[in-house]
Each structure stands twice: as structure tokens, then as C-alpha cells.
């Protein structure tokens, strides 16, 4: 019959074991998938899968508290209410797919090229016509002055208008 062990001896044996295991394990195994740990926390793993995970947990005892916390997560109401600003910061991580956009005034569509060409031709034609008419009038006036044919008649018309124009004024003054 084996002798009963006291706590000190048990602790020493365990530490001895732990040192040997850590030395033999070499590099730490990668952490298991969170879903695997969650399934273990809910006792949903097969015996084989649970054993493999427990071997890893034995070397990573901090993960045991994660499993315990995960089990407690479904129990009771949440004691912490996050501040509104914290919630808003998290919500902003996903932008709105249909943002409200304030439209600016629609910019004027540029006129078609043919309309622009017609306008320019019209302006050019107008300038040309005015130029020609002005030139013609000017030429006639110049010719008249130079030739002097109608200069006397012109001056007479200017200084001695036709009788019918102011005849009524003369009769009124004399009466």
C-alpha cells in the first residue's frame, strides 16, 4: 500500500514533471483555433479532440481561464454597458453603404461643337456686313466731298432751306 502524499511532496512532484515537460516540449505549439477552444468550453469536442486540446492547455495554463470565462459568458446579464462614444467608434469601422450625399448644382453641359461653330460664323458674318455697309457709306460720302458736284447745293440746303420748310414761320412773323 502506497504511503499517502502530503501537499508539499505533491507540489514538488508536479514541479519536477512540469520542468521535464517544458524542456521536452521544445518550441511552443501554435495556439489552437478560437472556435476549437469555444467548442471545448461548451463540451462539444470528441474525446480525442478534447484530449489533444487538454495536452496543449496543460502547457498554456492561462488559456484555462479563457475557457472558464467563455463558459461564464452565457450566464446572466452583462454587467458592463459601454459608453456611447465607444460604440460609435466601433460602428464607424464599417462605413454606410448608402451614404447621404448632398448634390451640388449640376454643371452646365458644354454646348455641342456645331452650335459653337455656327455662333462664331454668325458673329463673323455680322462684323463683315457691318464693315461693308460702313465702308460703302463712307466711300460715297468721301466721293461726294471730293468731287464737289453737290457742294453748292449742299451748302445752300444747309443755310437756305427750301421755301416750304420755314415759310409758315416767315408769314407768322410778318403778320
Amino acid at each position, binding site marked *: 500500500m502506497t504511503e499517502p502524499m502530503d501537499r508539499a511532496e505533491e507540489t514538488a512532484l508536479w514541479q519536477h514533471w512540469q520542468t521535464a515537460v517544458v524542456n521536452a516540449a521544445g518550441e511552443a505549439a501554435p495556439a489552437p483555433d478560437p472556435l476549437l477552444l469555444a467548442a471545448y468550453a461548451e463540451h462539444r469536442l470528441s474525446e480525442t479532440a478534447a484530449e489533444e486540446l487538454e495536452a496543449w492547455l496543460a502547457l498554456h495554463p492561462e488559456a484555462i481561464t479563457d475557457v472558464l470565462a467563455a463558459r461564464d*459568458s452565457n450566464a446572466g446579464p452583462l454587467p458592463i454597458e459601454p459608453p456611447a462614444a465607444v460604440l460609435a467608434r466601433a460602428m464607424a469601422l464599417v462605413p454606410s453603404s448608402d451614404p447621404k450625399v448632398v448634390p451640388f448644382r449640376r454643371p452646365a453641359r458644354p454646348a455641342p461643337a456645331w452650335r459653337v461653330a455656327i455662333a462664331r460664323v454668325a458673329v463673323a458674318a455680322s462684323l463683315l456686313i457691318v464693315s461693308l455697309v460702313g465702308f460703302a457709306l463712307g466711300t460715297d460720302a468721301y466721293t461726294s466731298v471730293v468731287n464737289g458736284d453737290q457742294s453748292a447745293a449742299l451748302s445752300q440746303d444747309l443755310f437756305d432751306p427750301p421755301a416750304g420748310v420755314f415759310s409758315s414761320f416767315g408769314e407768322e412773323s410778318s403778320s
Partner: protein
Amino acid sequence: MADGTDLSSLIAGNKAAWDGFVRRYAGLILSAVRSLVREGTEAEDVLQEVFVRLCKDDFRLLRTYDSARAGLSTWLTIVARSTARDVQRRHRLPQSALDDVPERLLAVVDVHSEPLKLPKDLLSPRQQLVLTMLYERDMDVADVAKTLGVDPQTVRSTHHKAMLKLRAHFGPERQ
């Protein structure tokens, strides 16, 4: 919340689904990490980091979740605590340079001149885990039983058998 349905629309980029998800689970995540980080700004930063991980790369992490394997609250708790530990590791104080450490502190006491021989499967994964919980995490038998989903007497029996094996293996070496 019918998680399967809502997660589908959330992963599709539905803004309203994401906002609802944040409102519902932010408190759970804060509760999960509060034992690992300081309350206040640090906890809120970890909360934001968790949500960033969930929606990063077109919700890559969230897409790995399978409701058939574990509950969403359980899985989120595991993810949150894993994130908190990563944040803790990043914020850890930098190690001192080797030259700055006094030589006496670097001395290694060679307890075993030869590497400990560890027979394969000396302890089963379950036995390893029980010992780790009892001695490393300082948990009591009832908590260990609850974690493993077994009877407390089963825990005591597992512990006793493991100790007998260790004593049988290490007993002659320790003497």
C-alpha cells in the same frame, strides 16, 4: 438574435447589421477582458481592437465562425481574451539588455546534469491538465470539475493516479 442569419448580412457589409452586432456584443467583450486589462481607456482600446480584428480583411475572422460548433458569445469571449493578451504582450516593458544585467543573476543552477527522461504518455492529457489546474492555476477541485464537466470525485481520482505515476517515475531519481 438569430446569429446565423444576421452574421450573413453583416458579412455582406450591411451597416445596420454591423451596428446591431456592436451594440449587442460590446458589453460582453468588455466583460471578457476586464480581468486582463485596466478598466477605462485600455479596456476600450482592446474593445476596439477586437472589432477591428473581426471586420478586418472583409470580415475574415468572423467568416471562420461556425454556429454548429460553438455559441457566438463563447467564441467572442475567446477571441476577446486572446486579443487582450496580444495587447498585453505588445505593451510589456522591453527586456533589459544582456550587458546591463549583473552576471550573478545570469547564473544557471544545473540541477540535472542529464536531461530528464520522460516516457511517452506517462501522464494522459487529462491528468496533465488536472495537475496544471490544481498546482499552476491554484484552482480547487470543484472548479476543476466544473471546467472539465466531470464529477469532483473524478478529479480527485485523476489527481491521485497522476501523482502515483509521477512518484513511481521520479521517486528513484529524486532520491
